[in-house]
């Protein structure tokens, strides 16, 4: 038991000594959290628009006026030539073109439907969808006005009123959604890379042999090695949670105790994988590439950036063995929705099984004798 303490003491000393290590462990995660939280948003604040109004009538101006008044649109170009505005779009100076034909006012006056063209730069498909919806909404508003004015809204028209209410994130703040996930990402990466590189480093400098001739027990060695990283990652998690709560005002609806409890199991899992990787690799370079390979796959599939529900079945199936996916989902459910122990029991059981597996696998692979 005492030997474990000596190993822990030594690991901490080495971490503190390394001048590059401290910023990597403490400062960078914070920066990442601050930057990522702000950078990761799909929300579209405004659309750069170009308008072609060939009609210049009262009606067409009224439509243009509606776009001008909307905070979602910035009219950057006006022209009578579609070719010219197409060129502007080609060079990414505008994202959307509204084309009003010359008979616009005339058709409306004689109560006839009239077509306008709405051209969107769709290189970014997701953004294009949103921009298109914004514009359609404004045209819908315009139609309502016209109908009202023409007194054609039949009085006994049946109307279904929709009342949406947004639970768990009433302001539709993307940060609220991203931060629990980013927290998971950071502690996973820190834990995985520190533990993955650490033992390989002892292999490279040759101290591992010196340790292997000592009567030290395998599990003492592993516990002693992993404990410091467990504390560092745990510290990062606490710090991140505090930042989330006090800087970003993210509500933590569920129980903090539950988060900490499951996080401590999850970190054992992550450190176990790191240790396992370090038993596979001979050099730090290899260890890092192996770690990267899996981290990238796990992160992309975890639902951090794009929802898991939208993925094809095979991708969702891979997530059964994706520890990051479990923990991100767990964190979001507990932090945002206040899920209780029973609601996340599936996650907890999966993480625990995985933790036991990864630690046993690593212990089994770690050989004192070759």
């Amino acid at each position, binding site marked *: 038991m005492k030997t474990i303490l000596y190993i822990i003491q030594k690991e901490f000393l080495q971490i503190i000594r390394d001048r*590059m290590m401290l910023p990597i462990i403490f400062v*960078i995660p914070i920066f990442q959290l601050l*930057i*990522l939280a*702000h950078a*990761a948003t799909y*929300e*579209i*604040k405004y659309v750069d628009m170009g308008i072609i109004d060939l009609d210049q009538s009262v009606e067409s101006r009224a439509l243009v006026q509606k776009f001008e008044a909307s905070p979602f649109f910035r009219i950057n170009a006006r022209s009578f030539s579609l070719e010219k505005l197409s060129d502007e779009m080609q*060079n*990414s100076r505008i994202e959307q073109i509204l084309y009003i034909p010359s008979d616009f006012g005339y058709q409306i006056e004689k109560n006839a*439907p*009239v*077509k*306008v063209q*709405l051209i*969107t730069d*769709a*290189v970014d*498909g997701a953004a294009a969808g949103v921009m298109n*919806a914004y514009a*359609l909404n404004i*045209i819908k508003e315009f*139609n309502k006005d016209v*109908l009202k004015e*023409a007194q*054609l809204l039949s009085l*006994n*028209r049946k*109307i*279904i*009123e*929709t*009342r*949406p*209410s*947004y639970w*768990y*994130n009433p302001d*539709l703040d993307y940060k609220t*959604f991203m931060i629990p996930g980013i927290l998971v990402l950071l502690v996973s*990466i820190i834990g995985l*890379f520190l533990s993955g590189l650490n033992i390989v*480093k002892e292999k490279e400098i040759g101290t591992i042999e010196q340790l292997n001739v000592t009567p030290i027990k395998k599990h003492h060695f592993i516990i002693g090695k992993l404990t410091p990283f467990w504390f560092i990652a745990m510290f990062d998690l606490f710090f991140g949670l505090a930042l989330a709560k006090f800087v970003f005002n993210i509500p933590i609806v569920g129980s903090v105790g539950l988060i900490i409890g499951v996080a401590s199991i999850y970190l054992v899992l992550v450190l176990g994988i790191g240790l396992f990787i370090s038993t596979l690799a001979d050099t*730090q*370079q*290899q260890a890092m590439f*192996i770690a990267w*390979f899996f981290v990238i*796959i796990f992160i*992309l*599939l975890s639902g951090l950036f*794009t*929802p898991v529900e*939208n993925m094809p079945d095979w*991708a969702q199936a891979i997530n059964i063995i994706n520890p990051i996916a479990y923990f991100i989902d767990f964190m*979001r459910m507990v932090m945002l*929705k206040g*899920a209780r122990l029973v*609601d996340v029991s599936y996650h907890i059981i999966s993480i625990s099984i995985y933790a036991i597996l990864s630690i046993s696998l690593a212990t089994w692979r770690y050989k004192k004798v070759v």
Partner: protein
Amino acid sequence: MRIFIIKEFLQIFRDKRSLIILFGIPIVQVLLFGFALKNEIQDIPIAILDKSKDVYSQQLINKIISSDYFVLEEDLQEEKAIEEAFRKGKIKQLIIIENDFSEKLEKKNRAVVQLILDASNPNTASMINSYTSAILRDFEHEINPIPTRVPMVIPETQMRYNPELRSVFMFVPGVITIILMLVSAMMTSISIAREKELGTMEVLLVSPVKPIQIIVGKVLPYVLLSFSSAVIILIMAYTAFQMPMVGNLVLLLAESLLFIVMALALGIFISTVANSQQTAMLLSMFALLLPSILLTGFIFPIKNMPEILQYVSQLMPPKWFVIIIKNIMIKGNGIESIWKETLIILGFTVFFIGLSVKKFKTRLE
């Protein structure tokens, strides 16, 4: 000189694990991005609480669940069950139809449908809301007699460059950029840091070979590797994902080469700063990879970020390269539209090479 290049190649190719990663990561990433990561929604699990169970409400429910967007996961009977259903995390939307739905529509011409959305992912929530609203509007039209002649603006939507709104168009340029960054900058910085650690760099430095030859010898294999990696991704994008190649292929390859040289210069610079492999790795990982994923506009549009981050993104070389790729591949633009971006990357290249040479010299003196 030739001997150096051959030595580097041998080292890279002997290290099978790294080689697998070198070509494995790009392929896996492209496949993941292309097939798995989608922002388009379909088959969203929802729940319904129908308090009326009458003609109109049944019609409406049928209409909703027969759409491709939604799957009925739970048919709730009482309001008490709502919270539980959400907390368990499965359903994303609950549609509540109020009491006496048909009667209210017939007599008062007005009835309420309440939507409760799980907005923990705000993006999905607003998409679900707009799809549901569209279905409700349709239903409204169906139950109302259509007036014969109305003044109405009918928008004709045209999605230019990407009519099917496929996300691959965004992801492929992004993945190419990340891979080039990873392979070029990260691999060189680590490989040089490794030689420093092992002391083999000193041996090279005292040999009669000129420093510039050492660097070229180190870097050339990586140029070729990165370049073949980029070509593989392009071929996959073109064949597996039907990504268009509107512009000039030669121009695209030339720009890729320029970007690779820039990334290598950056890698060399990092290795002159870092004192060990571990720091070189962590530096490249945190300082290069995450920002090049997030601040280049390939997942999240830069335009929507806070101003500070927009300025920071200007300092990210990958951002400019993503713009160049998109312009050439998707929009088919020539050099006249991207000369500015090209110059910026060229500027970065010169800057990093200059810094490294300066660092290198002071180390020798």
